[in-house]
């Protein structure tokens, strides 16, 4: 589990993990509706992370705890 920050880039969401200096585009997010937001995040570098599905944050950037499921560190 690590803190990540999700912000809006030029095209879609951008993932940032301060501890590992990973900054990458989010290719797909499992749930992306105002009521249910989060789930599995697929990064452009192949990384796979999970954030607890929740109501979409009112404002981005948004810091949240994430779990690494698979892929490069």
């Amino acid at each position, binding site marked *: 589990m690590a803190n990540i*920050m999700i*912000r809006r880039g030029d095209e879609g969401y951008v993932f*940032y993990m*301060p501890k590992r*200096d*990973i*900054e*990458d585009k989010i290719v797909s997010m499992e749930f992306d509706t105002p009521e249910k937001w989060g789930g599995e995040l697929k990064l452009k*570098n192949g990384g796979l992370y999970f954030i607890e599905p929740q109501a979409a944050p009112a*404002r981005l*950037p*948004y*810091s949240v705890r994430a779990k690494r499921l698979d892929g*490069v560190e």
Partner: protein
Amino acid sequence: MAALTREETQALVQEVLEVYPEKAKKDRAKHIMVNDKSLESSKKCITSNRKSLPGVMTMRGCAYAGSKGVVWGPIKDMISISHGPIGCGQYARGGRRNYYVGTTGVDTFCEINFTSDFQEKDIVFGGDKKLTKLIDEIEMLFPLNKGISVQSECPIGLIGDDIEAVSKKAAAQIGKPVVPVRCEGFRGVSQSLGHHIANDSVRDWILSNRDGQAFEKTPYDVAILGDYNIGGDAWASRILLEEMGLRVVAQWSGDGTLAEMENTPNVKLNLLHCYRSMNYISRHMEEKYGIPWLEYNFFGPTKIAESLRAIAAHFDDKIKEGAERVIEKYTAPMNEVIAKYKPRLQGKKVMLYVGGLRPRHVVGAYEDLGMEVVGTGYEFAHNDDYDRTMKDMGDATLIYDDATGHELDEFVKAMKPDLIGSGIKEKYVFHKMGFPFRQMHSWDYSGPYHGYDGFAIFAKDMDLTLNNPCWKMLKAPWDKSEPAAEQKAA
């Protein structure tokens, strides 16, 4: 075009690494790459922000250097106490030439060394009492200070002093912010963690101090982040922004004040020059206050024009026109500078090894002068810095992370650059080897190098160094090569 082909560069790296023992060779190989512009992520090619290899000479600093020397030190109306033995504070005092306006010792304090001067008894019995006394003395002797930061040196963390408690108590007593900063030198692998710790302490103790207070806003408020006013850099940047119609609310932290930092949450846009040392606070302000941030580059007219347009794109037409006006105004004088120095510098090769932002930011300035950067590297960068560097550097150029003394020497001997830009520690080594050298950490006692005015100085300095006749005279007469001797005989 690079000076060497990809294969030649790779062969050079192999050759240089050959002297290391097997394990060290494997480790160091990960820190050196041959640039490939087509790649988007540096992750697979270069490893960075790792502990330096024991036994090799590294050029890195410590967390205290990153916090006191870089981020907190230049805030002019705050007093940064070097809490611990006296040496760290003495050697971190004013060495970076962070210029400021003010009367030193009365309302500004950057160049004075404030230290608790730890002795054996403080290590044994703890230094908290001494710190309390020190803060009292500062308040009595320098009443115009606006706040105090306590920069811990290694022993503070080792003996477990509670500087937070002392600071809280002192802050209540004197009615000013007293910020404990846990930047003990042993933390992390380089000064980079010091930047992060300093950013976090600014976030926790300074940034929200004026939340909810009245502030007269304009739609054109910006803050300059990560410009430490080395030789007047921030001033040279600031006048350009003001000329295009923006209002600069704060300078972080060169020539900056505590009030400016506390007012920063009110700005419309954060302009980030040194990404490495201040991206943390920019990201925090984006999340908490919704302030977007933008990286910019004020080295060399090409990059300045690009940056001014990118900055203006965040504002209305008035600012966009302003940006065009500024670019237009400086085009002619800059062409003059280039016309004067380009013929003297054209085609020369440069090797860089610096920290922070310069290994990638100054590439554009050298290219404006017709020079080529054949190798570059950072002392303490992370992977996101290399992602950005790969795009700015030419194909098949050499990129090295946390280079050792041996590697730098060998790369220079093999690539024979016409100019080397690095730090003070490397300066005299390369002078003795007979290579023209500029100290690019604090501009070799020159500057500013930012902005249009800075570029003129930059071009002049590079010319003075590179074309200095002294480099031809460094070889002893008996070491002169044969052809010269023959000529004399004939």
